[in-house]
Every structure is written in C-alpha cells, then in structure tokens.
C-alpha cells in the first residue's frame, strides 16, 4: 500500500513557489522564503556586479548588499514588475554607488597595463577576428584589460554602457532604472562610446597597414 500522506508531503515540497509567493511570505516575516528568493537570484545579481567589478570578494559583497536593500524595500515592491527586473535595478544602483565611491583616474590606464594585458592587446591588434574569440576563452588578461578600460569611464557613462551592451536594455529602461531623463541616457551612451573608442585607440594603434590584400 502507498503511504498517501508521504507522497502528498513530497509533492508539496517539489512544488515550486513563484517569486510573488515568496515575497508575500518574506513580507509576512518568513526568513526562509527570502532565503529561497536570494538563492534563486544570486547568480544573476553576481553576474551584473561582475560587469562592473573584477574582484570576486567585491562582487559577493555588492550582491549581498543588494539583497539587503531589496529585503529592506520589499514592502515597496509592486508585483506589476517582475521581481528580477526590480532586483536588477537595485543591483545596478548599488554598483553605481560603489563606482562613484572608488572613482578611478583615467590617465592611469596605460601605465597600469601589465605584461599579460599588453600581450593580449597586441594579439587583439594583430590576429584575425576568429582567433581573437578563440584566444579570449579563459584569458584572464582579456578580462582584466577590459575592466581597466571600463574603469577609465566615469560612473555615469559606465553604467549606461554596461546596461546597454550587456543587459541589452533600451534608453527608456535605463532611464527608469537610474531615475534619469532619456536625453541624459542618450548623451551618456554617446559619450561612453566615444570615450571608450578613444581609450581603446590608445591601446590599439591603427596599424592595419600590415594587412595585405
């Protein structure tokens, strides 16, 4: 004979609760529900933080800070917006605050490049596009050089560039997350692209004359 009670209990534990249900339980004071929300969205939060900071410890700290802010503001959450999008706005703002706190001086960029980063830049300048992608896999120098380049942007430009390129958000979505006007986001996006290009050209001189066709 089946033990129907045991089957029922197991089935209940397998049922996946929605984010909204977990939020309701969290608001009601159930800490375990918020723990489940955290574990469900931690990877995504850390991925966003990782677009801004290379240090794993900082990334973990910022993700945790984001969840604390989310928990504190859980009562203000409105279910019209998916929890993931709401949380993303919090994570981006936490990262933005941190970027502003540790503003980097752009003139440090070239002097700060290590041997591995310079080699990577040389490879990007000289090899074929396909080989760049092949060599980028697992190349820590590629990531660290990218971080250094992006750190040379001011926090506003960097946030816009990251959200536009990485998260594929529209101007309006970025404006909503940051609480800025769409015009400001557009200007920042344009500036960010120009500055990034200028910084990149300091590293990648236009030496394409070597190409024989």
């Amino acid at each position: 004979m089946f033990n129907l009670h045991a089957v029922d209990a197991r089935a209940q534990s397998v049922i996946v609760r929605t984010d909204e249900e977990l939020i309701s339980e969290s608001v009601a004071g159930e800490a375990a529900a918020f723990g489940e929300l955290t574990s469900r969205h931690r990877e995504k939060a850390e991925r966003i933080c990782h677009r801004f900071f290379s240090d794993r410890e900082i990334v973990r700290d910022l993700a945790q800070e984001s969840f604390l802010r989310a928990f504190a503001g859980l009562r203000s959450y409105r279910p019209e917006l998916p929890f993931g999008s709401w949380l993303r706005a919090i994570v981006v703002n936490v990262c933005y605050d941190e970027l502003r706190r540790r503003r980097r001086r752009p003139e440090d960029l070239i002097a700060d490049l290590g041997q591995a980063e310079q080699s990577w830049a040389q490879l990007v300048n000289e090899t074929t596009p396909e080989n760049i992608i092949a060599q980028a896999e697992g190349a820590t120098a590629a990531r660290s050089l990218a971080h250094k380049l992006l750190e040379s942007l001011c926090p506003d430009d960097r946030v816009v560039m990251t959200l536009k390129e990485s998260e594929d958000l529209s101007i309006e979505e970025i404006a909503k997350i940051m609480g800025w006007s769409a015009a400001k986001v557009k200007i920042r996006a344009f500036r960010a692209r120009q500055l990034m290009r200028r910084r990149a050209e300091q590293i990648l001189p236009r030496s394409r004359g070597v190409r024989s066709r």
Partner: protein
Amino acid sequence: MNCLEARREFAGFWRRSLSEDDRGALLTHLWGCDSCDHSFRVFALTAPVLHGAPPERRREHLKAASNPPEPSAARPGGSVRAERRRIFAAAFVMGAAAAVALYFSAPPRVTLEDAINSGGSAVTNSTQDIDNLFGRDDLERDSAAPEGSKLDFGQGREHGFAS
C-alpha cells in the same frame, strides 16, 4: 552586408550565436572593411566583460584551440602570404607534372641513328614525305592541265618585269 549590419552582429559573433551564413558574411565584410575591422578590435577589448567570455568552442574547433597559432599565420597579411606560397607551389607542381606528361605522350621521333639502325623502312618513309613536300603530284597535274591555264614564264620577260 553593410557596415551597420556588420556592427550589429559583433555581439552575436562573440557569443558564437550567428548562423554559418551570417558568420561568413561578417568575416568577409571585416576582411574588406578596415573601419569595421578596427571597430571589432575595439569591441573585443571590452567584450570579455560586457558580453562575457565566448562560449565553449564546438568539437571541430577543439584541435585548433589546443595548438596556438604560428606567429606568421596569425596576422592576416601572413596568412595571405602563406596562401600565395601554397598556390605558387601547387602551380609549380602542376606545371612540372604537365611537362612530364607531355614529354612521355609525344609520338616517337625518328633520329638519324634510328634511321641508320633500322634499315630501309624509315628511310623510305622519310623520302616519301620529302616527295610529297615538293609536290611532285602537283607538278604532274600542271603538265596535264589545259592549255589556257598553263603559266607562260616568257611573258614577264617580254613586258620587262625581269632583267
């Protein structure tokens, strides 16, 4: 593919999510457009953070990944030079093979030594050829031709064309 379309495909190319056709079209465009090629390199500097590391390569690319590219082949110009060398080598080999084939397929020529050693047959053949060359048959036809059609070699002298 124009420049705008090409630049839109950078992220997909980086993530290896483009179809083979789109990938080929983009690579062809990059090869022909210095501006887009440079833009891709600028893009590649920040892509490891903004677009993440490229996904694991497919099985057929694994071998290539394990062997780092040779410096000479890494540069686009280097690969063109290598390609030209290969084409030149292939053309040379083909030319040499054609020359050898032509030499062995040509009909055997009769040398003077062969003619002497082989007795009368070769000599007979060659004399027949010489007879035909001089057109003995034509001369015979001329002698048998009607009266009006025969050339009168004396007329030229009479008209003062010959000294």
